[in-house]
Structure formats: C-alpha cells, structure tokens
C-alpha cells in the first residue's frame, strides 16, 4: 500500500490536478498492489498451516492405535480412527502444498504486471519532464 501512496504522490506531482486520478494506469496499479498483498498474506497463512500439519503428522506417528483420536468439528469432538486420521492429515498436507504453488505463480504474475505498470508510469513521467523542459527552455 505504501508503494501505491508513493505512486499517487508522484503522479500528482508530475501531472498535477489536470490528470484524473481515475486514470486506468493508476487503477490497474492499485488493484495489482492490493492483490499482491492479499496473495502474500494468504501464502503466509498457508505456510503456517503447512508446518502445523507436519507436526500433527509426526505426532500421530508417535501414537499407537490404543489411543483414541478425536477431530474437533465445530463444538463437537468426533471420534476418528488413527489410520483414518493419518490419511486425512496427509491429504490435507498435499492440498496445502498445492495451494502454496498456486499462490506462488499468482504472485509472480502480479509482480510482472506491476513492473509493467511501473515502467509505464516512469515513461509518462519522463514525457512530462521533457514537456516541462521545453517550455522552460523556450521561456
């Protein structure tokens, strides 16, 4: 978000009030930045879940079938089979890994897009400066 604010300031400085803030470039930028941050936070959450499920898996290994395993579903502790529990946890782990991969690719794409937008902004800035320079030279 800070980057967006910075861009906003730059844009205003460069183009002044004549440029509409709803210009497509700025909007795109904004969206991208929020998306990026969202993806980042989601990915971090997934990371935490990944570690947690790993620990659960290991601890289930330490137990034997004599112990009863429960799963908390809402307010209810539901009895589960140990093997079933192990399988469930394994499946969850795989799911989490897949999600992480997906988010990674998403992030990469978004990074690329934001880079493009940044370049566009920079070029616009340069143009403006050039335009500014010419009237100064003339005057």
């Amino acid at each position, binding site marked *: 978000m800070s980057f967006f604010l910075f861009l906003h300031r730059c844009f205003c400085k460069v183009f002044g009030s004549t440029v509409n803030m709803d210009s497509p470039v700025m909007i795109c930028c904004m969206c991208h930045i929020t998306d990026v941050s969202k993806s980042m936070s989601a990915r971090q959450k997934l990371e935490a*879940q990944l570690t*947690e*499920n790993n*620990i*659960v898996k*290991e*601890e*289930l290994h*330490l*137990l034997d079938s004599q*112990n*009863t*395993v*429960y*799963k*908390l*579903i809402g307010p209810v*502790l539901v009895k*589960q089979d140990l093997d079933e*529990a192990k399988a469930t*946890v394994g499946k*969850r782990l795989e799911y989490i890994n897949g999600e992480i991969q997906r988010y990674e690719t998403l992030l990469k794409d978004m990074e690329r897009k934001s880079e493009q937008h940044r370049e566009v902004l920079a070029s616009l800035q340069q143009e403006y400066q050039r335009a500014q320079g010419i009237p100064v030279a003339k005057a």
Partner: protein
Amino acid sequence: MAGNMNANYDLPQGVERLKEEHRKVVKDCKGQITHWKKVEKDYESLQERLVTLPDKLSYDIMVPFGPLAFMPGKLVHTNELTVLLGDNWFAKCSAKQAETLVEHRKKHVKNKLDDLHKVMKNFQSRAGFTEDLEKMTNDNGDFVDIKEKVEEEEAGTKGKHRVAHKPKSKPKEEYVVQLEEEREEEEEEAEGEDGESSKRVLSEEELWARLDELERMEDEQDERDRMDSTDTNGEDTSSSSSEEEKEAEAGREAQVNGQSQCENQASVSHIVQVNGIAKPQHDEEAKEDDDEEEEGSSLPTIYFCHTVEPKKVRINTGKNTTLKFSDRKEQKQQGKRKKKNGKTNSHSIQEHHKITSPSDIYRVFVDVLNGELVPRKSILKSRSRENSVCSDTSESSTADFEERRTFFGRAQSHDDATHSDASDGITEEDSPSISLYPNGRFEAFSGTVVEKDPLPSSIPHLTIAPPALPTIPERKQEEVSSEVPQEPIKRVSKFKAARLQQK
C-alpha cells in the same frame, strides 16, 4: 563538485536507512526469540507436571469457574489426557505418551529458536558491515578514490615544442603536465603508506622543485646521450621531441627516485608517465605496472594517469628500430661490451642475463661461433629466412634482405654504418623512407615461415662486418621486439617522416 556533494549527502542518509532496517529486523528477531523461549519454558513446566500427575489417583483442587470464581473440586483420571495435536485434532493418551509428544514439540521449538538466533546474528553482522562501510567512506579507510587529473600546466619544456599535425599525435606538453601528477603519486605512495589523507595534497613548491630537478637530470642525460651517440646505436636525442626525451628521462628518474622511496612501487612510478592517450602499443611492463598502479590504493586518492609507452627512440641506421628508451641504453652498453669482448671471450654471454624485454632474449641466447658471439636470429628476420620460402614481414627485414643481396661484403657494413650515422637522430618515421630507397620493394608476409638454422646465413654476414656486429644484432633484436608494435606505428611514422623530411 555539486554532484559529489549530493552523493555525500545521500550516502549517510542511505546508510542511516539501511542501519535502521537492520535494527528493525534485529528487534523483530529478538521479540520472536523471547516468545519462543517462553513457549519452551512452558513446555518444560508441563513436562514436570506430567511426570508428577499420575502419582495420585485424584487431587483436591480449586476449579476455576469463569474468569472470576473458583470452586473446590477433584482432579480424577489423572493418567488420561486429551492432547491437542494441532489443526483441530485431539488424541487421548496417557501421561507418559503425552510427555513424549511434549518432547517432540520442544524439538521443534528449539529449531525455531536456532533459526532466529542465526538470523539475528546475520543481521547484526550486516549492520556492522554497513557501519564499517560508512566509516571507510567518510574517513581514510582502505578504499581509495581514484581520480584522473587533466591539467594544463607549463613545466618548462626544453627544446622545441612539437605541434600536432594529426589528431592522434597529441601535443607533448601533456607529458610534462602529468609528470607532476606522477610525482605526486610517487610522493603519495612513499609517504602515505599509512593511509594519511592529509599528505596527499603536496605543496606547490615541492612539485616545482621536483620538476626543476628532473629537468636538470634530463639535460645531463642528453649530454651523455649525445656523447654516446657516435655508435650506430646512438640514441635519439636531438630529433625526437624534447618532451619525449624529458618524459623518458623523467620516467627513468622517477624510477630511480621511486626505488629510493618505495621499492615495491618503483616500477609503478616509472611507468606512470602520462601520455594522455593510451597508445595501442603498450610495453608489457607498462601494462603490468599500470595495473599495479591502480591496485596500489593505499591512499584516499590516487591520481591515475594513462600509461605512456616509453620513448621510442630511433636506433641507428636505416633499420626500423623502435626501442624503449631504457632498453636502448642497456643494449647499447651491452653492445659495446660485446664489441670489446666478442672476439675472444665466449663468457660474455653470462654478462647480461637480465631479460627485461623480448629483445633481451636474443641478446642472452647467443651462439658462439669462431669465438665470436653470434646472436640467434628470429624466424621473422629475413636473415634467417634467406633461402626460405616466405617473404619478409617488415620493411626493416626487407631492407636487410636487400642489403645482403646487393651490398655484399664490407660495403654492407659500410652501408649499415653510414645508415646508422646518417639516421642517427632521425626518428623512426624516416626508416620506411630510407629503407625503401635501396629496395623499392615492400613485401607482405606470404604466410609461410620456414625456420632455418641461423648460423650459416649469419656467418658470412657477421664476419664480414665486424664493426657492425654489436649494432646489427642489437638492431635485429630491436626489430624483433619492435616488429609487432611497429606495424601500427607505421602510419604515424610516415607523416612524421614527411614532416621531418621537409625540415
């Protein structure tokens, strides 16, 4: 300077920012470490409790009712525990099994703590590095600013001033200019070894005094040179520009002084004669020394100057010989020695084993034939290829070739001698014109090189012209050494030759 100032202003800001970031990371790490340490302690107390819990069948406790009230009660089934495994999974297990689980979790916590410690240490060291960097940029650290000063100074050039006819040949005044810088460097290197930046600014008086000193020495050297230049190897003292001489002189002097001042950088100061233009033909030494020069950054500022090739002195006679000034003297002396001892003494080979240039190789590795020193010829020399298929590669070898063919016998030596006398003091540029006169032929290298035994071809040549013995081999050697650099020089030479011919 404004740019510099801005950079200086930005630098501390950037460094501050960097340090701030480092500090933030370190603080975060510390916070996390405290958190995980607390967790570890909790687990340890839990372990203790688990050990003691099954001791009794039931405990009398005060059971918490809500956030504010307690009720007396009993803790039963002390060995049955429902453990949260994570992610909404529970397991019923005994106290001992619970203890195993706790142990397993403690391992994880310890790993996390180790990682955090490592990260903290990393960032602390990084902060230290940035501090060092800041210190170094601000104070006199080991890093040095390399600047190249381009000044226009008049330092009393003696002799005629050469005017640049071509853009390539820069006016030689610049040589003089950079002498000062070179001297500055010398003195800096000598004095500022301990890294004192205050001494890098030398006094004007010192510089001027040094300049005068060098001028005097140059004059003396010129005198000596003129006296010595009776031989074909006479050094080019009058024809070359005075600046060139001065430059070479100064270089040698600088070398001498450099040696006196700082041994390891003597060669550096020698080579750092400024030419402004980095000419394509660099002496190997020059290149190496130049590199040394740049690397020798023990001071806050090093005044870097482009290397200049040592003065190319025309060495006797019509042969194209461009040799470095320092090499010239050495060879001349060695030539004289050889001349004196060459007849009988076969041990004269041992005299000069010092090899400083490729031409020295030919001087050192000489054959002894008939009690005389017969220098080996390079395969590139026409002499060695008398009967070979290939043609000559250079004008000089062409000249040799022709001379040998046309002027056989003593006349040849005379020719050489006359050439040497005549061309004594003539710049290298004359050589193409002179050598072309007898030949009128200029062949390019055919591409075939047949190495011949140099002895048979050289014997008649040398025995016939004993007086020219010291000179011819030297000249040949010089040719060899200068053959390569000659090629690019030729273009310049012709113009110079034309100009000199006009004079």
